[in-house]
């Protein structure tokens, strides 16, 4: 009896303790002078040389200002540059700089600081430093600089508005400390960082543009696991989170506000590298590649694998001018036509296609079944290093989700002979002609005309077997709102604002 009472008392005490503990609600992001974001990635370095777009850019936007601001709709606005002028031949640019701006270490932002930053960036090795290579910077006066490009750079404004002009204090440029401790003039200051976990930023008290400081504190939690991000959002630990196709429905059903980025960011599909047919002779025949395009039921595939993805047969983004609506449906699903093309090419009995074992088994299974219908047998290559191996030219084709950059970026990476996604250096006569025309004069108008031409050629010659454009999803609690950003998977940091709830 005595023992029983003691046990009962212990159980009761434990229960009270448990209730007491669990009665304390987990830290909710209740005070909306704060913003907590659940992010997919974390920065690899705070040195602006290593700045990257997509999931990485909000971190840099917290602590650094760039010269030009890119608005959500893709237009360009003044920031540290008050105005700019690009020459007609795209070979020079004059930039007027804002006066009175200081870095958080007290150093002044001026033409010398801007030049030092751009020189460091151009001379460095980073994800996009090559986009400004061959550019020299000269100081015109204390608040004016001039950029001179060795070859036309019609997209110079885009690069200065994204990764190419995050300004760090000249006192820390080229120091090892800059990699782990940013010193900029941005709206926030990095207060604490637990690498692999979270980054806390507090408002910069002397910031020049208070309209960009909508929160007194911003925390970006690095949550690489999609379910953990969803749980953090549903459990109230974060105000906004990037979602995958598999977690969108759960967030929606729990009343979270969903933002889908229809400003196309990525496309998913088969990138055929071996258009010369050196590894796989069948792929060297345009009819075979066209047959592969006709054999894919894109609408069904998109519905089965994604949420509201946009079927397409072109790789250029609707955000640019090379895009043509008609090319979204150039290869309508037509099995009979696919089979007749295979027969005409002499491959009625099919062939084996080696593809990387892509991370989505459901997508792989469907693609395999579509290709099997025209007697193409897919051999899924088990290679954990397929990405670098593809880049090194070891694959004949891969399934991949690829960033749809600006028109020139897409053209350069996918259709140029030395493009980073033209891994086996293919060049057709029509594409060669288009590049020759573009190289003669790199003006903005020429880029517009020739990238549209290249898009048409790539589709007609079936350089790729695109499936669809992938929509990107961000969900927020009712206390925060945001705006999707053109050509970026997640909203820019400036796009978040409290709702007042």
């Amino acid at each position: 009896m005595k023992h029983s009472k003691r046990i009962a008392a212990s159980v009761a005490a434990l229960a009270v303790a448990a209730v007491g503990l669990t009665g304390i609600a987990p830290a909710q992001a209740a005070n909306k002078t704060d913003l907590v974001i659940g992010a997919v990635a974390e920065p690899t370095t705070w040195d602006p040389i290593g700045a990257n777009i997509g999931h990485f850019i909000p971190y840099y936007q917290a602590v650094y200002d760039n010269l030009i601001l890119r608005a959500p709709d893709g237009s360009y606005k003044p920031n540290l540059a008050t105005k700019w002028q690009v020459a007609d031949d795209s070979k020079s640019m004059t930039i007027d700089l804002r006066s009175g701006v200081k870095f958080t270490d007290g150093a002044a932002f001026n033409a010398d600081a801007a030049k030092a930053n751009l020189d460091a960036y151009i001379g460095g090795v980073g994800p996009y430093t090559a986009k400004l290579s061959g550019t020299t910077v000269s100081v015109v006066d204390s608040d004016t600089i001039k950029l001179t490009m060795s070859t036309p750079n019609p997209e110079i404004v885009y690069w200065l508005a994204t990764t190419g002009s995050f300004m760090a204090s000249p006192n820390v440029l080229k120091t090892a400390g800059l990699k782990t401790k940013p010193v900029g003039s941005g709206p926030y200051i990095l207060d604490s960082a637990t690498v692999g976990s979270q980054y806390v930023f507090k408002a910069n008290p002397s910031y020049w543009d208070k309209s960009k400081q909508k929160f007194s504190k911003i925390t970006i939690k690095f949550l690489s696991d999609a379910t953990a991000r969803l749980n953090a959002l549903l459990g109230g630990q974060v105000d906004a989170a990037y979602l995958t196709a598999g977690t969108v429905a759960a967030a929606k059903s729990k009343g979270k506000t969903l933002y889908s980025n229809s400003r196309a960011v990525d496309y998913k599909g088969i990138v055929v590298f071996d258009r010369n047919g050196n590894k796989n002779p069948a792929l060297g025949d345009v009819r075979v590649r066209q047959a592969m395009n006709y054999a894919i039921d894109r609408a069904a595939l998109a519905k089965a694998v994604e949420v509201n993805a946009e079927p397409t047969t072109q790789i250029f983004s609707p955000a640019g001018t090379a895009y043509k609506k008609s090319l979204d449906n150039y290869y309508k699903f037509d099995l009979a036509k696919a089979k007749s093309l295979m027969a005409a090419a002499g491959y009625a009995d099919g062939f084996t296609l080696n593809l990387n074992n892509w991370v989505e088994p459901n997508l792989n299974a469907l693609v395999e079944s579509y290709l099997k219908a025209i007697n193409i047998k897919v051999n899924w290559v088990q290679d954990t290093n397929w990405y670098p191996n593809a880049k090194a030219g070891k694959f004949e084709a891969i399934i991949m989700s690829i960033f749809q950059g600006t028109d020139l970026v897409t053209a350069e990476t996918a259709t140029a002979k030395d493009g980073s996604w033209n891994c086996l250096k293919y060049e057709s006569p029509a594409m060669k002609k288009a590049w020759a025309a573009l190289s003669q004069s790199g003006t903005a108008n020429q880029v517009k005309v020739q990238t549209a031409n290249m898009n048409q050629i790539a589709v007609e010659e079936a350089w790729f077997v695109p499936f669809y454009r992938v929509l990107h999803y961000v969900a927020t609690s009712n206390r925060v709102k945001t705006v999707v950003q053109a050509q970026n998977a997640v909203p820019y940091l400036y796009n978040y604002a409290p709702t007042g709830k």
Partner: protein
Amino acid sequence: MLGFIVRRLLSGVLLLFVITTLAYFLVFFTVDGVAYRLLGDSATQSDILAKNHELGLDRPFFARYWDWLTAAIHGDFGTSWFNNERIIDALANRLPVTVTVVGIAILISAILAVVLGMAAAIKGGWIDRLVQLLAIAGFAVPAFVIAVISVTIFAITLSLLPATGWVPITEDPVGWLLSLILPTFALVIATVASSAQQIRSAIKNVYERDWVRTLRSRGIAEKEILFKHVLRAAAPSGLTVLSLQFVGMLGGSVIIESIFALPGMGQYAVTATGAGDTPVVMGVVVFTVVVVIVVNLVVDLINGWLNPKVRVK
């Protein structure tokens, strides 16, 4: 006893050397494309070559391994290629998270397993059958399933506990405790039943020995026989089981840390391995091996203290 400890430490050092050498060898020949991952899709070939040179990836195996080994002996594990964080700092931040979660889980598991195992071995009957049933259930339902279910119930539906995250104890002791409950719960539930079953078998085995019957025939109290003699004799098996569970939990924490977004060693190791961050992978290997060696050494010492025959071996 001192000779015993020295022998164990020397074998630990040898083990550490062999495992790290093997790990470096495996990483060297399987990791590729670090520069591509660092620089992204638009990087030019010259950028890739420059980055490879910067990281020393264009150097031969033995030169890289020797540099790593000599630096590691001096306590310098380098910096991450991907986030420039010093490995030693990263491990100092992450190891306590994993060790805390796993340590508390193993402690609770040990207490519950001993109590349940003893009750099952001595009382028999329904409690014995229950422990055996729970053991099967424990094997059948992995920790991550319990984690996902408990998050859905306690964090999302009832909003009683945080779904993700880690709060340092120095920052907020209550928040720390709350952030520990669900991950620890998942690990405990998945391991306690099987441990209890093993401990039950060990106690039952000793309890049925002739010498226990002799003690009983000499009129020694049952309580004394149990706590002074039987438990001591059954302890080595129980300790071995718990030490194996601890090592298993260290591996299992990879998934638990991922589900609860805990900044521990498991998540760190997975991220680094996926990215090909060799300095981080090697740092994690070294510290994990050290933890396992220390745990085994402690268990060996306790076993040696409990059973002098072990010391002689």
